[in-house]
């Protein structure tokens, strides 16, 4: 039987390489990284529109199926939105690690997140009391309230993931070549 004489440290190195993180970091730090951080002006808008449509469907079209099935479908849709939001974030102008930002990029990142958190705060401060009042007024059943709340959560997560990228992308101005 073949015995391996490799040390624990070399095995740990292999494990770290297996994750792909060292290759990704080396690629990011190279002069010509394979992942380009381009402005994404329309993809985040599509994601947000999709989440808004989902919330509208849940609000105005009372689903006549079992709550378990609805929750399953909503979970799948939510995961797809979150994955999409993550892709938008990593591929957009804010996708690179913040530790590599210079002062202009750090200021842009700060402004993007301030815009995002400000807008989210306003939307939630207005939306939550409205939903609460409407649900009480129309006497929503628990399953229906849960579905609406879940779709509102998906919209929140989508906005959190896409708004900073959207803000940074629309503030991006192409520079002429030297």
């Amino acid at each position, binding site marked *: 039987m073949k015995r391996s004489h490799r040390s624990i440290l070399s095995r740990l190195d292999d494990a770290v390489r297996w994750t792909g993180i060292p290759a990704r970091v080396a690629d990011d730090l190279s002069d010509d990284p394979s992942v380009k951080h381009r402005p994404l002006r329309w993809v985040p808008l599509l994601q947000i529109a999709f989440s808004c449509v989902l919330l509208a469907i849940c609000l105005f079209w009372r689903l006549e199926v079992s709550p378990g099935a609805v929750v399953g479908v909503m979970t799948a849709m939510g995961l797809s939105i979150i994955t999409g939001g993550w892709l938008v974030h990593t591929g957009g102008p804010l996708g690179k690690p913040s530790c590599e930002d*210079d*002062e*202009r990029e750090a200021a842009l990142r700060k402004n993007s997140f301030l815009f995002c958190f400000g807008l989210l705060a306003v939307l939630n401060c207005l939306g939550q009391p409205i939903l609460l009042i409407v649900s009480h007024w129309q006497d929503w059943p628990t399953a229906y309230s849960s579905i609406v709340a879940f779709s509102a959560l998906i919209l929140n997560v989508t906005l959190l993931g896409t708004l900073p990228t959207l803000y940074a992308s629309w503030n991006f*101005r192409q520079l002429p070549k*030297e």
Partner: protein
Amino acid sequence: MSLHNRIAVFRAERGISRRQLAEAVGVNPQTIGYLERGDYTPSLELALKIARHFGVAVEMLFSLDRFPMTFGRAGEGE
């Protein structure tokens, strides 16, 4: 109030690319482009670093007023 600068003039005169200047002062080359176009106002630290790189006083590179059009070398006789 906008901040005017002559980074592009100094850079062109010394034959330095955006990338070279960016590496010298520790920023992204795009940031130099944004500075030259006046789309970004630098911190005091970055302004001083750029001025030190060109070997001139910071007032010769940055001004609150428009720079007069000159036909000599940038920085001469000032």
